[in-house]
């Protein structure tokens, strides 16, 4: 009797599992929705954040005395150039024509007139401070902002 019950229960489990697994085949064939573009955008955004994180890390290493001023400047220039590349790639992802973060348009450096990459703090040509970056998420913030408009972090410090 026990065996019979167990067999019946197992058969039911099997039927249910088979239905659950195979039921998608009964639906109409859909064209695969490409998640690639969304994933690609996220990956690039994260790369950008990662680069800003590296700039902050380099700043901290300079404060710690791990690197000297000259090394820091070269490292930062390299990192900013990579940020520019990533921004360019972000623009080239199809369907990703969002304006730059916080609505900041690409502007020129007030000191030398070179184009400024959105999200950067210094002009890559002459080094003039042109904006601030939220330490929380890497978005561009204005110098007087009390909170980051992107992630809500307090900016007084």
């Amino acid at each position, binding site marked *: 009797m026990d*065996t019979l019950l*167990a*067999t019946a*229960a*197992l058969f039911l*489990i*099997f039927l249910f*599992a088979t239905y*659950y*697994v*195979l039921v*998608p*085949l009964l*639906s109409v*064939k*859909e*064209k*695969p*929705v*490409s*998640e*690639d573009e969304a*994933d690609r955008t*996220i*990956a690039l*955004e*994260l*790369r950008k*954040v*990662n680069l800003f994180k*590296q700039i*902050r*890390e*380099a700043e*901290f*290493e300079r*404060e*710690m*005395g*791990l*690197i*000297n001023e*000259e*090394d820091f400047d*070269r*490292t930062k220039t*390299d990192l900013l150039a990579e940020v520019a590349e990533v921004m360019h790639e972000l623009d080239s992802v199809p369907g990703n024509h969002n304006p730059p973060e916080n609505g900041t348009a690409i502007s020129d450096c007030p000191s030398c007139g070179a184009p400024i990459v959105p999200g950067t703090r210094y002009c890559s040509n002459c080094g003039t401070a042109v904006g601030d970056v939220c*330490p*929380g*998420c890497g978005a561009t913030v204005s110098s007087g902002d009390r909170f980051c408009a*992107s*992630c*809500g*972090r307090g900016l007084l*410090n």
Partner: protein
Amino acid sequence: MILLGSTSLQLALIFCSLALVSGFINLVKRDLRFSLVSRRGLMVSAFLILVATLALVHQLMASNFSLEYVARYSSAATPTMYKFAGLWAGMEGSLLFWLTILGIYVLLIGYLNRRRNLSLMLVVNLVFATVMLFFLIVTNFFENPFTLLPPGASSRGMGLNPLLQHPVMLIHPPILYLGYVGFVVPFAYAIAALVTRHMDANWIRLTRRWSLLPWMFLGIGIVLGGIWAYAELGWGGYWAWDPVENASILPWLTGTAYIHSVRIQEKKNMLRLWNVILIMSTFILTIFGTYLTRSGILSSVHAFAASELGIWFFGFVLLIILSCTILVILRKDELTSQNRLESFTSRESGFLFNNMIFVALTLAVLWGTMFPILSEAVRGMKITMGSPYFNRTTVPIGLLLLLMVGIGPLLAWRRTSLGTLKRNLTIPVATAIVATAGGMLLGLRQIYPLLSLGLVAFVFAGIINELFRGIRARRRISGESTLTAFRNMVDRNRSRYGGAIVHLGVLFMFVGFTGKAFSTEQELALKPGENTYLKGYVFKLDRYYEVERTNHRAWIVDLSVSRNDRPVTILRPERRIYIEQDSQVQSEVAIHSRPLQDLYAIAGGIGGENNSVALKIMINPLVQMVWLGSIIIVVGTLVAIWPSRTDQRLKERLA
């Protein structure tokens, strides 16, 4: 229950095959319906494996000896907790347990990614299904734990191997398996990145925690194995370069190289090929480790699970190597990176050098482990490489690695000018010189312990200096209190400071390893009332007596230890006879641990004509440092894994 278990295993095989086939169909035809079937098939299969495992555990706990497996690894007299441990005591059970852990990882990863990374997950699931299918075939057709005893045969159970009846054995195998099996996750993502041609640092980012976790588990598993060997096997040490120990340390070594080198890909998108090769090697070595334990190809203390499965595992390992090689060759162009090292004195090149040392260490251990097989194939003789070979090769490489642990964190990413590096090295080098001179003044003359002492001091000074300067810099920037500055500094860069804590743990372990060089021992026979001296301690044999316990009879020796006429402890080594296991005799070690040394005693023959007890007593310095170091490593890893506040905000922003 038996029917439920065996049928679940069979159904798991069917659904897993279905998942694999539909996954491939989807890959070729790009039909989303098949990808759903594949995903669901895999999940159902994982779930059914869990059901089968629960059924086996139930049979073990209920002592149903009509099941061959239960009869072989349990008995009515086996204590309840060891009945549970029967799950991983034998071949069939441990293969099912391997599948269980895989099932848990599959369900977890599947759930966390149910709406994310869909194109990657498709291939990830295919890799999971392939590995799962192999183990399901083996468990269903060759090593089925649900095999019944032949009709007419009856058994009262042979009980669990006495060597495995140790509390550590309740956690060592599960944790080791969490490590072994866990590496399948980053491996699967690496394959998925190759197949889908997404070879930037995205897969590395997605698997960061899933690489650190198995690495940590494997490390804890290895140390627990060491604790078991130390407390149970009775030769006074925790590491003997046994083939199976080596099999577990090999993937850990490549895994350690991997968790370092991925940082370069994260930062600079470099070393794509190298990282893929490292994680592939790590995964292959975990399967190879399972193969070594399970095939019986090398005799070892783990030979209790040997069988003829070798050829199947060997075939599977070959299949993985072949597929990985083909895939890497096909993606050769995309794997070469555009970026290059800016400077020799940079964190990147430090990591690269560290990687080379890890690879050298892996090759040295692999060579020594495989030598018996190679020598048998070439010269027809099984020549085993003993500890002298391993110590001769691994100790200098290990010390070189320790040097890198000290230098690496002093280098900044991308470039550090030589002048700055020299300045940063001043304090650590001075500390190392002082420590080495101190060691020499105290009478230390052997070269390796002296070097080890100097290097430990060098690294320690480096880590403390780094933390101190970091806190000072943060305080200067933000005006925070020391504690807040420390907390925020760690939170800002968890990889770096988690790593610093791990390195601190490594130091403690090295101190422990060095201490082992100063062990002293004495072997002798004592009669009741007699005593002996060792390193200032007096060991007096008070008495010995017999005790009857549930599944064995024990002779207990009371060995009182004193120093300067003050009692220290009473050591009670035992000699046991397990009646169920054909009167197997086993010695139970007695250990009294003090912070700086362990008093260790083991009893051999007891009684006899002259009423004496054969004893081996040892004084092992600094063993506790090894265990303490591993705890610090776990803490450091958890610090690195824990999500930082910045990560959480970022997650919310991208959600």
